[in-house]
């Protein structure tokens, strides 16, 4: 009606008016209205420019309606457009619309009229292939093509090949296929038919034929189904069930399925996609005779883990499961559901069941395996239970090395060196020649500085694995450690024995430490000339710089000598010597090595290097991270003077760096939190906030730990309210200082609320704080910004009152 009205309106308009309307419509892409106006204009006067405009409007409108899915209309509009351009080459878009409009006959007709060159495009080829295949089912399509068209000419051969294949006349089928040219529209179909022909006798050739099918071919869908079938995988749940019905039918035929088998397949298919496992269990139990008892039993057992309610159904078909098996299924089900407590219970029931069986090796191993399994299961917070389980499992299976290792690991996690050592000893006793055990024992002995043991383990390991570099290193360190020990007690003969062992291990003498020891031994024997020779050689080998000087000083101190005894050799660095970044880092590494070895004279050894270090911190090119690393290492070695200088220089380069502020304060306190001054405390809190803002968790933790220690040292963390002496400290609330507790619930609550507000604590956190008696550290950092957020909360008040009243006053509060 709208179009008619529009046409009527156009009829009464003058030409200029119509022209203006067309321009306006085209401008606003109202092609439908433009077409009406242009048609009216052409009725009045046949003008070429109006024809051009109309043709273009038809094309544009066709695109518009195709965009709305109206392909039939799009086809008609395109054809109207084409009328103005006789001999126009059919576009792929038009062919696509024909296909989408469900007009294969017309599509074939158009394709038949196209010159061959126009169909050589990828889309053209696919369309010709589509027509060729569709024509096998729809004879009328062939009539739309010229008789000389390849599709028409070669179709009888293809039909004959298919018929021959279907009726088992393979030779005839092969002959027909051989006659199909390689560039034929049927070339992919030919490859598919060839694969079908040979698949039973020669699956490899069949796969090769299938691989020749072009990736863009419309035969690919069926080819994939046949490929899966050839690979015996067509029944794979994802592949087969996703096939369209007729392709499923083809697979049924290839499998030789009859009605019974197809029905079986469909039943399983239906049950497999059900929401629960019950229909599948029911179906498989029903059809087990056809599929085979054993495979169905295994299949159903697998279902039971996710559907243990089906156990009774299963038992009706396959006989009763043992109590052990039933518990096992329930345990696995619970594990799958993440119900580990329940799983532990079921596994424990399994253990009870095994205990009732006659004792045998298999039973013992099963028992041990279950105990190990429970021990590593998540959800048990008490590690002791897991340790007991693992230890218990060894009663049943004492040869399980993994259990010893797990026990050692647990001991390490729990920071229980005794437990670790006990199980290490047991491990090495049980596996005296096991490289893994030896390596672990060696490391542990090294940590305990039992050098003889380290050397013993290392030697055994080197016998088994002569190129084990770790064993070689540990052995060398063990001899060196022992040599130092003997040097300290002036058993020089034994020092030489150890040094001989070291020389045998490192004949090239790449490590300066043994040379230092040898030089010091010579010095103690009064052979000063020889001592100088060794010591100078060692200093040179150590690089001669700050690291060498430090190492030398350390070795002197470790040997129980005084630095002044060898002053002519010590600190012979030039006054202007500056250590660069790599040397400083090497020094830090060396300090770390001595610290790890438990040496305590680090500060004394570094004393002589202090001026050089201070100069180096000032002049070396160091990053913020370098300064931090240096500070951390020197702080670990309790070298606070050096830390102070390093932090100072670091802050000069990068002011307000939270990490360096921390180290500056730490150095001021000499590492002792109780010496923290109030001004430094506020500086630390400033650094803490800055670290938090920057997301610097490492510094954040360092500062919090230090402040916590400070809090602990003060006994309590609230400001002083009077002298505090004699005020009762509520039991179970260690975070509440006695001074505050004495204020009475009302005032104390007010104080806490203010502190919480200022600190920005949530109500939940405050409740946790009150009930757990956490440190009051958090109340120290007060900012006004969050003050307004927290209002008086009834719940907190109730909790607080309850807590305070439930704790009777007891004992005297500790004084600050």
């Amino acid at each position, binding site marked *: 009606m709208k179009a008619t009205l529009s046409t009527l309106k156009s009829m009464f308009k003058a030409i200029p008016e119509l022209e203006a309307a067309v321009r306006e419509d085209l401008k606003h892409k109202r092609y439908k209205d433009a077409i009406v106006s242009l048609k009216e204009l052409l009725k009045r006067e046949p003008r070429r420019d109006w024809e051009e405009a109309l043709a273009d409007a038809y094309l544009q409108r066709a695109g518009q309606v195709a965009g709305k899915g109206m392909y039939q209309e799009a086809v008609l509009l395109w054809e109207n457009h084409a009328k103005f351009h006789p001999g126009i080459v059919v576009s792929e878009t038009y062919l696509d619309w024909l296909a989408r409009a469900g007009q294969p006959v017309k599509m074939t007709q158009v394709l038949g009229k196209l010159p061959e060159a126009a169909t050589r495009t990828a889309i053209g080829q696919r369309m010709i292939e589509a027509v060729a295949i569709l024509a096998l*089912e729809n004879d009328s399509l062939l009539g739309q093509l010229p008789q000389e068209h390849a599709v028409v000419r070669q179709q009888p051969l293809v039909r004959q090949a298919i018929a021959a*294949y279907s009726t088992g006349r393979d030779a005839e089928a092969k002959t027909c296929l051989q006659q199909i040219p390689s560039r034929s529209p049927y070339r992919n*179909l030919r490859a598919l038919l060839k694969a079908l022909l040979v698949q039973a006798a020669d699956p490899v050739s069949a796969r090769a034929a299938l691989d020749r099918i072009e990736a863009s071919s*419309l035969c690919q869908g*069926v080819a994939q189904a046949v490929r899966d079938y050839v690979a015996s995988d067509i*029944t794979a749940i994802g592949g087969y069930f996703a096939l369209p019905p007729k392709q499923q039918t083809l697979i049924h035929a290839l499998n030789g399925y009859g009605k019974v*088998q197809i029905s079986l397949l469909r039943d399983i298919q239906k049950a497999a996609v059900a929401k629960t496992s019950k229909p599948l269990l029911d179906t498989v139990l029903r059809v087990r005779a056809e599929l085979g008892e054993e495979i169905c039993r295994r*299949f159903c057992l697998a279902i039971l883990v996710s559907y243990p309610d089906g156990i009774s159904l299963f038992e009706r078909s396959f006989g009763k499961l043992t109590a052990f098996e039933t518990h096992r299924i329930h345990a696995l089900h619970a594990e799958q559901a993440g119900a580990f407590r329940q799983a532990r219970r079921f596994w424990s029931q399994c253990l009870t069941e095994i205990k009732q069986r006659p004792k045998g090796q298999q039973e013992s191993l099963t028992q041990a395996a279950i105990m190990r399994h429970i021990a590593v299961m998540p959800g048990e917070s008490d590690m002791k239970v897991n340790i007991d389980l693992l230890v218990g499992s060894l009663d049943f299976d004492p040869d399980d090395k993994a259990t010893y290792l797990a026990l050692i690991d647990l001991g390490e996690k729990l920071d229980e060196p005794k437990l670790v050592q006990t199980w290490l000893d047991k491990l090495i006793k049980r596996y005296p020649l096991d490289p893994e055990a030896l390596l672990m024992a060696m490391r542990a002995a090294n940590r305990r500085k039992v050098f003889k043991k380290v050397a013993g383990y290392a030697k055994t390991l080197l016998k088994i694995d002569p190129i084990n570099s770790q064993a070689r290193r540990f052995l060398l360190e063990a001899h060196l450690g022992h040599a130092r020990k003997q040097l300290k007690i002036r058993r020089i003969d034994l020092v030489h024995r150890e040094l001989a062992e070291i020389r045998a291990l490192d004949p090239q003498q790449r490590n300066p430490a043994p040379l230092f020891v040898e030089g010091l031994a010579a010095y103690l024997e009064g052979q000063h000339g020889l001592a100088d020779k060794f010591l100078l050689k060692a200093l040179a080998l150590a690089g001669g710089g700050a690291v060498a000087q430090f190492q030398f000083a350390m070795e002197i101190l470790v040997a129980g000598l005084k630095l002044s005894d060898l002053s002519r050799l010590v600190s012979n660095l030039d006054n202007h010597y500056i250590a660069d970044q790599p040397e400083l880092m090497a020094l830090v590494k060396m300090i770390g090595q001595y610290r790890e070895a438990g040496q305590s004279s680090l500060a004394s050894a570094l004393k002589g290097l202090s001026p050089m270090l201070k100069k180096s911190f000032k002049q070396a090119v160091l990053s913020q991270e370098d300064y931090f690393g240096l500070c951390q290492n020197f702080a670990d070695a309790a070298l606070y003077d050096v830390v102070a200088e390093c932090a100072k220089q670091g802050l000069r380069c990068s002011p307000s760096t939270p990490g360096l502020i921390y180290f500056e304060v730490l150095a001021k306190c000499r590492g002792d939190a109780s010496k923290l001054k109030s001004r430094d405390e506020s500086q630390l809190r400033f650094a803490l906030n800055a670290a938090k803002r920057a997301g610097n968790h490492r510094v954040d933790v360092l500062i919090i730990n230090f402040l916590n220690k400070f809090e602990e040292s003060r006994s309590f963390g609230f400001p002083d309210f009077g002298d505090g002496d004699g005020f009762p400290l509520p039991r179970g609330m260690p975070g509440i200082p006695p001074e505050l507790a004495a204020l009475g619930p009302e005032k104390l609550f007010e104080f806490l609320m203010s502190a919480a507000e200022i600190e920005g604590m949530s109500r939940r956190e405050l409740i946790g704080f009150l009930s757990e008696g956490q440190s009051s550290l958090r109340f120290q950092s007060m900012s006004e910004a969050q003050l307004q957020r927290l209002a008086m909360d009834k719940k907190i008040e109730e909790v607080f009152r309850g807590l305070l009243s439930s704790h009777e006053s007891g004992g005297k509060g500790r004084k600050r």
Partner: protein
Amino acid sequence: MQTPFELLEVAEDATNEAIKKAYLRKVREYPPERDAVAFQRIRTAFEYIETDRRRLDYRLFHHEPPDVSALLRRIPRPDVSRRPEARALIGAMTEGLIAKLINSAVRP
């Protein structure tokens, strides 16, 4: 899914040596540089059943979901020699052909 025993083609009561031998044979058949996926499957299967303890752990604690595909493969094939009818074959070929053509074509 095949069990590790099926994958390595060994009996469920095979010894450690037999399992190792079967594993090495399979690795020669599917070396990692030629078929990485198959090799990984073989390796995983071997790791499951390499030792007595691992086999025991596999039997006690491993749960493989029910394999519907394996079950479907067991459906009897009474007449494998029978060929699909020409009509069925052509039907499978033409099924959804236009849709495939449309999906592969350019959008206007």
